[in-house]
């Protein structure tokens, strides 16, 4: 049951047909993990907190640097040198004190990922490399937790929503190999745009609407302001999510 303050705070989204108090209650009782608090994570965390997700766990092992400030909008000059998750927790809590913000200062690894994502309704990608994404992807598939991938470079971005058992996972596409795509430069508005679409997909998942990018890959090109959406298929021999892989491991 929403209290008077919540009815006022969320008034604009409560007025949306098919969202209403029921949708808000679902958000309030949900737990979202944001893996990585860089350009993507700052923006998705801000909007998910503002929207009223009940618990938001933020995970990162970095401290704020001057070169982060063009895109990581939760951090300001006065925060340089502080742990990102501590700064983010402080500011997100001021934005919406009713949301429980749980900071975890850690690098996601095969050893700790299960305990960190356990109990999450959705994991939102805010990472900056393929290797850690594959670790998170694999854990999400095993725990059957939706994982909203987002990635950016320069003025380009990509996004897909991974629903374990239904859609392709990241390992369907890039099982192990490292690939060009990191450290190429980023204009701050691009991760903000992609992260807000990730937040939208996350909210839709939580309130029971079909995520628009399940089994579809969105590509954004900021040079021409172009969006493309391609359908993507599962890799039937994927080592992480294929049925054959699951049977093999079970035996």
């Amino acid at each position, binding site marked *: 049951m929403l209290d008077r303050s919540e009815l006022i705070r969320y008034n604009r989204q409560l007025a949306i047909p098919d969202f209403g108090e029921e949708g808000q209650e679902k958000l309030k009782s949900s737990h979202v993990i944001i893996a990585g608090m860089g350009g993507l994570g700052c923006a998705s965390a801000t909007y998910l907190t503002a929207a009223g997700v009940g618990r938001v766990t933020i995970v990162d092992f970095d401290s704020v640097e001057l070169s982060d400030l063009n895109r990581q909008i939760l951090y300001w000059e006065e925060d340089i040198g502080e742990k990102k998750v501590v700064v983010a927790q402080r500011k997100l809590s001021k934005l919406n004190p009713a949301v429980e913000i749980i900071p975890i200062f850690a690098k996601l690894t095969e050893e700790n990922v299960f305990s960190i994502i356990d109990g999450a309704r959705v994991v939102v990608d805010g990472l900056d490399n393929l290797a850690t994404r594959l670790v998170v992807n694999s854990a999400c598939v095993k725990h059957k937790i939706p994982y909203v991938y987002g*990635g950016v470079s320069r003025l380009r971005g990509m996004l897909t929503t991974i629903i374990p058992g239904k859609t392709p996972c990241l390992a369907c*596409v890039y099982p192990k190999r490292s690939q060009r795509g990191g450290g190429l430069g980023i204009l701050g508005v691009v991760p903000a745009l992609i992260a807000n679409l990730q937040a939208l997909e996350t909210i839709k998942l939580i309130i029971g609407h079909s995520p628009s990018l399940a089994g579809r890959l969105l590509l954004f090109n900021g040079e021409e302001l172009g969006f493309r959406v391609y359908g993507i298929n*599962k890799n039937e021999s994927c080592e992480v999510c294929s049925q054959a892989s699951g049977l093999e491991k079970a035996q």
Partner: protein
Amino acid sequence: MRVAIVPRMVELRVMVNPTGEVTWGPPSAISPWMYAPWRDAQRKGVIEMEVEGETLRALLTQVSDRYKQVNVDFDPIDPRTNDVDFDYDVLINGKNYEVVPYGLGVKLTDGDEVQIKMVWRWDG
């Protein structure tokens, strides 16, 4: 030149003037757009076409044109830079086109294999 295009997981592999028929089995691409709506290609797993000219640039341009004819937005060459678009890696016989003499102007020869890979984004 005659080319046989084989869509694989996240890339197009293009065989230049292949000797004999290229039959690489059923489709296994992650991205269905790679087959476009060509029924024969979907059945055989291979897209065959003729390319006018001999260079890598001619190949990429005409493959792109063929996809555009069926409303698939596929631009391996960025018209603004006239070079390979940032969304793709292009390899010739396993080497990035950038380190091959003449780059996009290199003349392709019988048996060459060109890979056009979609680049996913990993920064955050």
